[in-house]
Structures are given as C-alpha cells and as structure tokens.
C-alpha cells in the first residue's frame, strides 16, 4: 500500500494560491525527493501532509497517509496521526529541540503521548532509538540537554523522536542544509538506512539536486507552487523533459567562464603572514584567567592580482574569524597583513581608513547587511566614508551609476529601498557597494550560500566577469566545495585554525593530499557521480 498519495492538492493562504496541481505518491521503503528553489512550495507541501499549515490556509484535493483520508479527520485524529504515522525532521537542528528539556525526555514524549506507555517504558524506547540513530548510551545519556550536542547530533535526536514509533512516512525538510558536508553525508546515510530497514517512505525535501540525485528513487521538481515534472530519478535526469528541470540542472553544475590567468611575480594584493587570533574564554573562576582559545593559528598565504582564492573548511574551523582578521574587524595577536605591499594591520595596530578602502567585503545575508531605511544610493556610497575627498555632485552620480550598471542593475534603482529587491538583486547591490570604491580585493564570506541555484549561477558569472574586467582579486570563503571549485584558481583548506592544504583548485579537488581534504571531497554530494553510478 502506498504510504502517501496526494492528488490534485491546492492550498491557498488568505486567498493567494500557494500550491496547485500537486500529485505525488510514495511507496514504503522508497525515497521521494522534492526539489525546487525557495518559494516553490516544497515546505508547504510537507506542512499540508502534516496538516500544520499556517492560519488562514485552505486546502482542497486529496491527501491520504497510509490509506487514511486527511480531509475527513478532525484535529484530535490528526494529533494521533502526527508523530505516530508521520514523523517530520526540520532544517534547523539548532532550534528544533526544546532547550530546557533533556533529549531523553523529548524522544520519550513522542512515545508517551501516543501509546500511554509508562515513563520507564518510554525512556527505554527513547534509549533504543537514540542508539539506533548513532548516539550511544555511554556518550549520550538520556539526561543530556540539546546545548551539549553539536548540530549533527541534535539532528540525530530530531530523527530519533520522529522515528520513535516507526511511522510509515517520514518527511525530512532540508534535513542537512544547515550541516557541514561530512555531517550531511552521515545524516543522509542514516536516513537511507532507516528507510530500507524500517520500510518507511521518506519524503526528502531539498534545494540541492546533488543530494537527491544520489539518494532518491523518484523525484518531483517544483516551481511556483506546482510540480512541473515527476518520475524515477534517473529517468528525470536522463530525459530532462521540462525546460525548468534542465535550467535547474544547468544552474547547479554551472561553472562561469574565466579566461584570464592571474599575473604572478608582482607584489601580491594580499599577504597574510603568521596571523594569530586568540579569543578570551569566559572566566570560570574570579581569580584565574582562562587560557585563550586560538581560533587562527599561524596562518600565512598570498593572493596575486586578479587571483581568486577559495577558503574552505567546516563550521568552527576558523574561516570566518580569519576573514574578520583580514578585514581588520578584529585585532590580531600575532603576524601581519599586507595589502599591495603596505602593512594593512598587525598585532596591536589597526589599518588606516584609506587603506581599508582597498579591501571590501560581501556577506552571506543580503538583507541583513543593509540598513532598511536607507535608499540604495546611500547604501552603495557608504565606503566613501573611508576616503578623505569623497566624490560629490555629478562625479558621485557617475560612480553610483557605474557601480549599479557593473552589477547588472540600472541607475534608476538608486532611489529605491532594499525591500524592493529580490535576494539575488540584493546581493548585486552588496557587490556594487564593494565595487564603488574600486578596491583591489573583495572578501566574499559565504556570499552565494543563501541564494537559489539559478540566482547563484548568475552571481558567479557576475563575479567572474568583474574580476576579469576590473582586475579584482577575491578571497572566496564557503562551506560549499562545488561553488569554490567553480570560481577559484587556488584553494586553502582550513581545519582547527590552521591551513592544512593549499594549491591549484583543480589539483586539490582531483587529488587531495591531506586526509581532511580527502574526507571533505568524498563527503560532497556530486551530481555527475550520482548519475554516472550504476543503478542499485
């Protein structure tokens, strides 16, 4: 019997249609991947199955979970269904667990509310489930709190509470998006194993084609609230009938054209020498100063003119701290940073504003890095505060106009506010803000990580073009190895505050030398590899 069948589902919220013409089926022991960009209705589809739609929603059509028709079930019956017949895993493991209750308590709760099991029985089931998801008793006793656990471990707890009653259907909404690649690989393996062993149906929602390509038996591609193409995974990828499927595929594997090779031999744009960054740890004892935590440990590297250098590593490896140190947002405890041969900052000494203008930054969150009450004109001219004689009048207008045109916007956009733009356009404005002062180097800290694949492809093209035309160098920081591979000439691999490997990007990715790099490369889901693999 199918564990999930959706036909002709339509959802509207306050009269706006958010989902229409959704038809999906899922059999036990199978994995259905739902792929689409943000706003395509993936999560809304999951919430329809859970019947946890936001208030003001109406739905029509038919949803059957293990044969039961949701349209005729009242709220008490739905409560009995949730957690028992359908389990759900969410994107953000850091916030998905109640911080004030123990992990054992939270897993046992699923058991207790549905079965009337005693406390002792529920806790013994919780123990069994935590062991099952790879959290053994000796290291993860039931009385641990979520804050004692890492993101991957918390996601395992969320999985344990979702599968505690062996539901027939498991819904995972971007379960690994917030996790590092190696953790992602482990969680995906765990999900795959659970599906096969428990004969559950798994609905796996993701924006990442490479994740589903290696995992899902069938795929549904969503766009603007509708399923545009659905079928067996290999079939979909081989045929790519729908233009959107093709576009999504092309965007995911996009590598921008970069003709010119960086010039070497001249003075490097950026020279980082023996940089050390220590953090003061919180005091436990009033009279004993705790030893500092060394987040960046004697790091040295150079970036040449027009060169794009990638910096990769897992969360907590020190890459963002290094970026902050390079930008002189934090002071150094050792070493120095040189820009075009001049000392930019060194231990105990910050940079001169005029020098600071030669280095700009673009952050991950395109909305959070702008003041929402300022017009774009004012936002992009912010870096002019750094120079003594900022351009005025017609010259200023010309510079604004040029910066906006460079990033593919028009000069009329200067009078708009940031909320009037889409995520991709906002990131273009962030790049315009960095460009306007004609820097030599731009630090891109996860600059494309929050963007959908098609937008990401456009921004990568834009960055590649700018680098070539304006002789710009980039320090490109990302946890996403495929993006770094697409845009950089050279890559640095960082672990525990040290650079463990560096070299030409292609060489490092093709033939990683350090065990850590090997592990990272192996854990990264690859679209081509998944499609080339023989069917199992």
């Amino acid at each position, binding site marked *: 019997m199918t564990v999930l069948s959706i036909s002709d589902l339509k959802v509207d919220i306050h009269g706006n249609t958010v989902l229409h013409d959704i038809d999906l089926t899922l059999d036990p022991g199978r994995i259905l991947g739902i792929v689409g960009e943000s706003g395509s209705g993936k999560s809304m589809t999951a919430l329809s199955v859970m019947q946890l739609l936001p208030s003001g929603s109406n739905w029509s059509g038919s949803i059957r979970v293990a044969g039961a028709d949701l349209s005729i079930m009242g709220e008490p019956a739905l409560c009995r269904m949730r957690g028992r017949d359908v389990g759900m895993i969410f994107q953000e493991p850091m*916030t*998905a667990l109640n911080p*004030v209750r123990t992990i054992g308590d939270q897993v046992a709760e699923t058991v207790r*509310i549905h079965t009337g099991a005693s406390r002792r029985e529920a806790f013994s089931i919780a123990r069994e489930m935590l062991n099952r998801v790879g959290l053994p008793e000796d290291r993860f006793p039931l009385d641990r709190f979520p804050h004692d656990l890492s993101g991957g471990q918390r996601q395992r707890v969320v999985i344990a509470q979702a599968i505690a009653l062996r539901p027939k259907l498991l819904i995972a909404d971007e379960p690994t998006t917030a996790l590092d690649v190696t953790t992602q690989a482990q969680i995906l393996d765990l999900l795959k194993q659970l599906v096969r062993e428990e004969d559950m149906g798994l609905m796996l929602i993701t924006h990442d084609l490479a994740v589903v390509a290696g995992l899902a038996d069938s795929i549904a591609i969503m766009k603007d609230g509708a399923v545009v193409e659905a079928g067996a995974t290999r079939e979909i990828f081989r045929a790519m009938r729908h233009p959107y499927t093709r576009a999504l595929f092309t965007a995911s594997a996009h590598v921008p054209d970069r003709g010119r090779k960086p010039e070497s031999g001249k003075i490097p744009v950026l020279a980082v020498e023996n940089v050390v960054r220590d953090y003061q740890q919180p005091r436990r004892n009033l009279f004993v100063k705790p030893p500092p935590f060394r987040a960046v440990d004697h790091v040295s590297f150079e970036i040449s003119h027009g060169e794009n250098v990638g910096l990769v590593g897992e969360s907590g490896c020190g890459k963002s701290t290094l970026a902050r140190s390079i930008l002189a947002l934090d002071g150094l405890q050792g070493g120095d940073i040189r820009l075009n041969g001049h000392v930019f900052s060194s231990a105990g000494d910050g940079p001169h504003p005029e020098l600071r203008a030669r280095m700009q930054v673009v952050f991950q969150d395109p909305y959070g890095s702008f003041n929402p009450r300022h017009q774009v004109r004012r936002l992009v001219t912010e870096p002019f505060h750094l120079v003594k004689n900022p351009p005025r009048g017609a010259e200023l207008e010309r510079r604004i106009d040029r910066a906006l045109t460079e990033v593919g916007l028009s000069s009329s956009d200067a009078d708009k506010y940031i909320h009037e733009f889409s995520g991709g356009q906002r990131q273009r404005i962030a790049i315009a803000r960095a460009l306007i002062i004609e820097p030599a180097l731009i630090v891109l800290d996860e600059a494309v990580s929050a963007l959908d694949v098609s937008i990401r492809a456009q921004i990568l093209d834009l960055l590649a073009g700018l680098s070539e035309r304006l002789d710009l160098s980039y320090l490109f920081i990302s946890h996403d190895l495929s993006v770094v591979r697409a845009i950089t000439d050279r890559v640095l691999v960082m672990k525990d505050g040290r650079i463990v490997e560096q070299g030409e990007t292609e060489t490092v990715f093709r033939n990683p030398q350090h065990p850590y790099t090997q592990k990272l490369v192996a854990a990264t889901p690859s679209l081509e590899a998944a499609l080339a693999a023989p069917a199992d």
Partner: protein
Amino acid sequence: MTAYLLRRLLSLSLSLVAASLVIFLVMEVVPGDPASFMMGLNADPQAVAALRSQLGLDEPLPLRYIGWVAGLLQGDFGISYTYRVPVSELIAERVVISLPLTLYALALSTLIAFPAGILAASRRNSAADLTVMGATQLGVAIPNFWFAMILVLIFAVNLRWFSAGGFPGWEAGFWPAIKALTLPAIALALPQASILARVMRSSLIDTLNEDFMRTARAKGLSRGQALWRHALRNALIPVLTIIGLQFSFLLAGGIIIENVFYLPGLGRLAFQAITQRDLIVVRSVVILLVFAVIVVTFLVDLAYAAADPRLRRRRS
C-alpha cells in the same frame, strides 16, 4: 550546579560589601550635621560637641565604617537620632507590615498576570487578547494612588467591606491584618500585574513562534499540550526578571500607597527619617533595601537556573 550556586553567592557577598561602602560614604557627604540638627538652632557648641562624641561622630572614618558593619552583622543598627530608640526596633515594626504587603501584592500580581498573559498569547488577536491588552494598557496608565482612593470609596466608604486605612497589628489576629492589607495590596498589584501580563504575553508569543514548537506539534501534541509542555518554561525567563524587579520596587516604593491607607511601613519611615535628618535610620533602611534587592536577585538567579538548564552549564 553547585559551582553556579557558589559563584552567585560570591558575587552576592561582594555586591553587599560594595553597597555598604557606597551607602556609608554617601551619608558622610550629605550636608547637615545630625548632632547640631538634634540640638536645635540655638544649641551651645560645647553641647553639640559632646553629643558628637556620644554619637561617635568624631572618630576616624574607617573606624566608624568598621564599627557600623560589625554592628550590622550583630543586628545592631544603632540608635535613632530623633526617636532615641534602637533603629532595629523601628525597622522591625515597619518590616512586619511592608514585607507581607509586598508579598501579598506580588502574589496577586502573579495570579492575575499569568492566566491573563497565557490566555492572550494563546489566542492572539482574538477578543480575549484584545480585552487583556486593553485592560493592561489601562492598568499601566492609571496612577495607583488614584486607584487606591477609588478602592477606598467603593469598598470602604460605600460597601463598608474593608476599613479605609490603618493597620490593627498582627496581634489582632491573622485575618484582620490580612484584611487591612487587602486594598493596599490590590492597589499596588494592579500596575504590576498589567506590566507582568504584557511581558508574559509577548514572551510567550515569541516562544510559540520558535522552531521547537513546530517540532512539538509534529510529534502529535495538540496546541494546548505544546503550550503547557514546551512553551511556558521557555517563556519564563523575562517574566522572572520582571518579578524580581517588582519585588524590590514594591518593598520600598509603596510609600504613596502607605500614605493613602495610613500604613506605618518602611517607605514612610524612610521618608520621615529623611525630613528629620535622622541619617542613621536612613542609612539602615537603605542598607536593608539593598540587602533585600541583592537577595531577591540571587533568588531570581536560582529560578533562572531552575527554568533554563543552559545557565547551569559547566563551562569547560
């Protein structure tokens, strides 16, 4: 947990030492010599000098500080300059009114605020929510002395359920004493309950929007179950903070209400002592209030740790 407790205790004692030092020094720089004030305008300088030495005012500063603190530790607050009785007695007879009144008002405030806040948050934008929000807006806006007088008019003058003021003393029995404190407690509790209800509501609404509430619903908990089991404890931290602040405020800040109801409380004692330059009483009342605030802060810290395990975390 023990380490957390010890750390809090240590910081508590240090705050007390610092506070006593500040209070002592401030009292020293306040103009007005108690001895000459007590002797009147036409006093003989020799008599004033004699009184100064009798009061110990001519000793060096550090010695007087140590003497004062040593006395405090034994419960000896000194002798009031104006009443010529031990300050500890004066304070004791006021504390037995002010402290129960504060606790009474705080209990009322919590009993009103919790259900109102929870109701408003769980039915956001409903008629119940609008009513609670409107009522609490009014409660914050109404001056409590005016509200106190309205209470007196209705319940004492017209209905004659309560007396209009005064305090019979605890020796008159528990219930008559409580009855005398009821109207003042209500008058004190109203604005506090309004603030607390609003804090409870907004804190709970924030918590209800957290990701883990969605997880709880996905497990099969009903809206109500999810609220009681997962939201409430998480929403409590800001509420506890406000309760702690309200306690300190009510203990000393009841002076207007004490005046309306002719209650001989701590606030009135402090007020009288200030007007009469009875600095030793002022100093004692202030150190007592500081002590109360610090102890309440400590209790609130303990309550935080009970509510949120992250605060008990052993830092590694």
